[in-house]
């Protein structure tokens, strides 16, 4: 990476590859009446111009086996209707991307425009349906928890908050966009697809299903992946189209989206609305929560996770670290004429934490209770674990209150309260947010979602070659999380060798037998757990062989510093590399019938809860409405920390994304559904100037459910930040009696509430 020697999909040399450019819908909604391709077909360098009809109208269809879910097909290329501006209709294949784009301009699509449904308000106004299968526009409707006594609890509550919270549509925007290079290889009877993805095996299934191939006939390889954040854990229609073309033309075909395609045409996330009624006792105890959650999921249900990811997560996990008393929640996914939503980093939790924290702050203000105190009164306490929530979740041991108290101490010591007081015309505020993040969902937990394919477990193979070097395979698929480092640590630890001798191979469906990829903060916990199990088995083999050579009981052999030695007898040692070469080359000298040093391991934990408290210090300029986060602090607990540098890096990167969602980023549309944020000029991804230094402190509550004691933590940063930042903004505005309940908070929003309260 540092030398520029990384290999991302677009870096793979393939001299004779053709390039695909897509002709995309210029309108948000309409009926396709004609597609004219003749001119493009004869343009310079063009190999093919492909419509849905040319490839047999294949589609990707996500299925949840629930009555409340309406399956809808996402065609690879639109053929009857277009459902969002930017939807691909025609693929132009040419000798270079320049020529493909030239020719794409010669394609003419005749579309009878219809009125788009863009927002939940449009939906409520009853605009015509987007999918015939779902005449009411609702693709999923989950009444997750019903509680007969909730109404009464709310009716009797001394304080009832009846609030609406909203969050804007955001783009994951990994710096490397989506990209693929597909080629058919006769020799192996296989379509080989290099792809920038988080889930190679699921893409294999998606491609095989869409093209009518056997799983074996598709090999998906993810080389270096330049960020994913959830966007790359769904199967993209464009990539499957490129694969279909490669198969049909028997030519290597590549597609690498440009930024405009990424922002306009790739999946988004988090456009949600929460209508919440919450009852509090006079002492601040939360008595009950009734939530009606609606997610604007865009035009299609993504494969394989479906459009239910956000509503399901929101309705299930809204309570978070708090004891909510009585609880009911309904989660709906509403189809609109915008790009589909994918499970973007944090999946609804940035929103639901924002909602719960707003409720706490509002109740604290109304009841005259300190903001920390009201949280103390409602947070699940150490002695209450394992805590059984009214949302059907059992929370294992965490440090919810401890994290908050530590955070309070840290910000006190860092002088935040002093800084908040400084009087220079800027408004300052401090915000605090507590959350737990369920991570590493195993099969049992995912099974409750009732997906047609249930993710969860992972497997790993560990093998030692004749020189004593170790190769580990995993079905997880990193894209910047440092798996190479942490997996090597975990495996080396079991084998007593230097981590530098352990090499991780990931992201190749022909290398790892199967896997569920990298998302949901699962990799180190599940994939790394599986690798640890496999390494443990390999260590047993090494101990057996060393026992024979050292004439000792295997149980007395320990592996450390690259050697096997009898416990307590340091001069009885043999190098692990000698053991390895003996097994490979001189097995006749052993009575042991070990022929190779290899082992397989699996892990399938139920899903555990990391937790954290985030605190933000912001400055709001009342003149311009501009908000700046000037300091940030995280106290987090992800169980045993395998590698602090990597954990901190994940937290900081996540916080930056959370600050972005709180203050800067939003995909916006004109009233007729044209995207207004198609470049980084308009879609405001924060730079180093907008992201403050972020202090990270660790608490360690080892997890008993995982092999390494670690809990996942990949998304936490993103989850806590919007709540903390908006709480800080509201704290800054407090003297004005102004409140903001939606993100992002833009300067105009601040000016608007200040003006209203003046």
């Amino acid at each position, binding site marked *: 990476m540092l030398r520029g*020697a990384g290999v991302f999909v677009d870096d793979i040399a393939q001299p004779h590859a053709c390039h695909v450019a897509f002709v995309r819908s210029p309108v948000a909604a309409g009926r396709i009446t004609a597609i004219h391709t003749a001119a493009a077909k004869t343009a310079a360098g063009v190999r093919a111009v492909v419509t849905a009809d040319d490839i047999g109208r294949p589609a990707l269809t996500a299925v949840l086996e629930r009555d409340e879910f309406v399956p809808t097909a996402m065609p690879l290329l639109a053929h009857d209707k277009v459902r969002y501006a930017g939807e691909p209709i025609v693929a132009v294949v040419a000798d270079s991307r320049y020529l493909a784009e030239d020719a794409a301009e010669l394609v003419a699509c005749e579309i009878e425009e219809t009125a788009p449904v863009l927002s939940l308000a449009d939906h409520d106004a009853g605009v015509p349906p987007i999918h015939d299968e779902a005449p009411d526009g609702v693709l999923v409707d989950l009444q997750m928890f019903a509680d007969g006594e909730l109404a009464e609890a709310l009716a009797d509550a001394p304080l009832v908050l009846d609030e609406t919270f909203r969050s804007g549509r955001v783009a994951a925007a990994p*710096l490397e966009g989506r990209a693929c290079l597909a080629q058919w290889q006769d020799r192996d009877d296989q379509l080989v697809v290099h792809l920038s993805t988080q889930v190679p095996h699921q893409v294999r299934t998606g491609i095989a299903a869409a093209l009518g191939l056997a799983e074996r006939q598709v090999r998906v390889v993810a080389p270096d992946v330049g960020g994913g954040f959830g966007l790359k854990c769904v199967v993209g229609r464009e990539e499957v189209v490129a694969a279909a073309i490669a198969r049909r033309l028997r030519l290597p075909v590549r597609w690498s989206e440009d930024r405009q395609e990424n922002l306009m045409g790739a999946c988004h996330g988090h456009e949600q609305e929460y209508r919440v009624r919450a009852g509090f006792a006079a002492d601040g105890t939360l008595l009950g929560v009734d939530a009606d959650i609606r997610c604007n999921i865009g035009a299609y249900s993504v494969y394989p996770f479906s459009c239910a990811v956000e509503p399901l997560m929101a309705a299930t996990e809204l309570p978070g670290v708090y004891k909510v008393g009585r609880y009911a929640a309904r989660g709906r996914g509403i189809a609109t004429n915008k790009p589909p939503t994918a499970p973007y980093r944090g999946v609804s939790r940035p929103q639901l934490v924002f909602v719960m924290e707003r409720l706490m702050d509002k109740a604290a203000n109304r009841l005259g209770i300190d903001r920390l105190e009201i949280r103390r009164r409602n947070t699940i306490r150490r002695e209450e674990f394992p805590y059984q929530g009214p949302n059907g979740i059992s929370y294992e041991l965490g440090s919810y209150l401890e994290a908050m108290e530590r955070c309070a101490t840290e910000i006190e010591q860092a002088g935040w309260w002093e800084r908040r007081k400084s009087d220079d015309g800027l408004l300052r505020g401090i915000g605090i947010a507590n959350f737990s993040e369920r991570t590493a969902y195993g099969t049992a937990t995912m099974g409750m979602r009732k997906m047609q394919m249930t993710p969860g477990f992972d497997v790993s193979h560990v093998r030692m070659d004749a020189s004593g070097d170790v190769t580990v395979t995993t079905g997880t698929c990193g894209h910047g999380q440092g798996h190479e480092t942490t997996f090597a640590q975990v495996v080396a630890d079991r084998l007593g060798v230097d981590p530098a001798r352990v090499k991780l191979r990931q992201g190749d469906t022909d290398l790892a037998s199967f896997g569920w990829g990298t998302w949901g903060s699962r990799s180190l916990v599940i994939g790394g757990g599986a690798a640890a199990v496999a390494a443990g088995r390999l260590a047993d083999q090494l101990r057996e062989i060393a026992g024979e050579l050292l004439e000792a009981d295997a149980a007395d052999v320990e592996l450390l510093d690259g050697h096997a030695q009898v416990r307590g007898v340091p001069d009885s040692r043999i190098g692990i590399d000698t053991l390895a070469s003996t097994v490979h080359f001189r097995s006749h000298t052993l009575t042991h019938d070990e022929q190779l040093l290899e082992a397989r391991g699996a892990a399938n934990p139920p899903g555990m809860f990391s937790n954290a408290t985030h605190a933000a210090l912001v400055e709001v300029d009342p003149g311009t409405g501009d908000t700046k986060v000037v300091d940030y602090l995280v106290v987090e607990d992800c169980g045993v920390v395998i590698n602090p540098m990597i954990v901190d*890096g994940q937290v900081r990167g996540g916080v*930056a994304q959370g600050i972005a969602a709180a203050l800067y980023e939003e995909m916006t549309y004109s009233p007729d559904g044209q995207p207004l944020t198609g470049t980084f*000029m308009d879609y405001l991804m924060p730079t180093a100037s907008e992201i403050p230094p972020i202090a990270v402190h660790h608490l360690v509550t080892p997890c008993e459910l995982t092999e390494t004691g670690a809990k996942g933590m990949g998304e936490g940063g993103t989850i806590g930040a919007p709540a903390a930042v908006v709480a800080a903004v509201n704290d800054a505005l407090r003297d004005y009696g102004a409140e903001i309940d939606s993100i992002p908070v833009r300067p105009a929003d601040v000016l608007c509430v200040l003006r209203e309260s003046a």
Partner: protein
Amino acid sequence: MKDQHLVTLDVNGREYEVVLESRRTLADVLRQDLGLTGTHLGCEHGICGACTVLLDGEPVRSCLVFGVQADGRSVRTVEGLADGDELSDLQQAFSRCHGLQCGFCTPGFLMLAEAYLDTEPAGDPEEVRDVVSANLCRCTGYQGIVEAVTEVAAARRKQRDG
């Protein structure tokens, strides 16, 4: 085909001759014609800085420069930073400070920082933050990047002042 130009480039001290259409960007020339794929494209509209290279020592966005504009000039890319197997001080600092995660933005930041360090700056963190805010990173939250560049600025200053 008309509109072809013979262009001579000095890239990382090596001379190349390429025949180019005038609309071909320098980024595409480096990546596709010369096989120097370390320079990345994150936006192709001049905002993200992933494609930053040094043109006659100045940092430029190679997605906004046409190949023909680089005719007869010297280009430095990320591939030219290390001395054989030995990583440069800046590359080492990026690794030490965890200034990269997915690594896609890294070449652009390295070249941006290299140009900045060449100006022999004081290198206080605020200034560094300001300078590196020319480029975008989606993964790191920038802290490691700022620390790496600040460290190298200090070390080089110390070396200079001897």
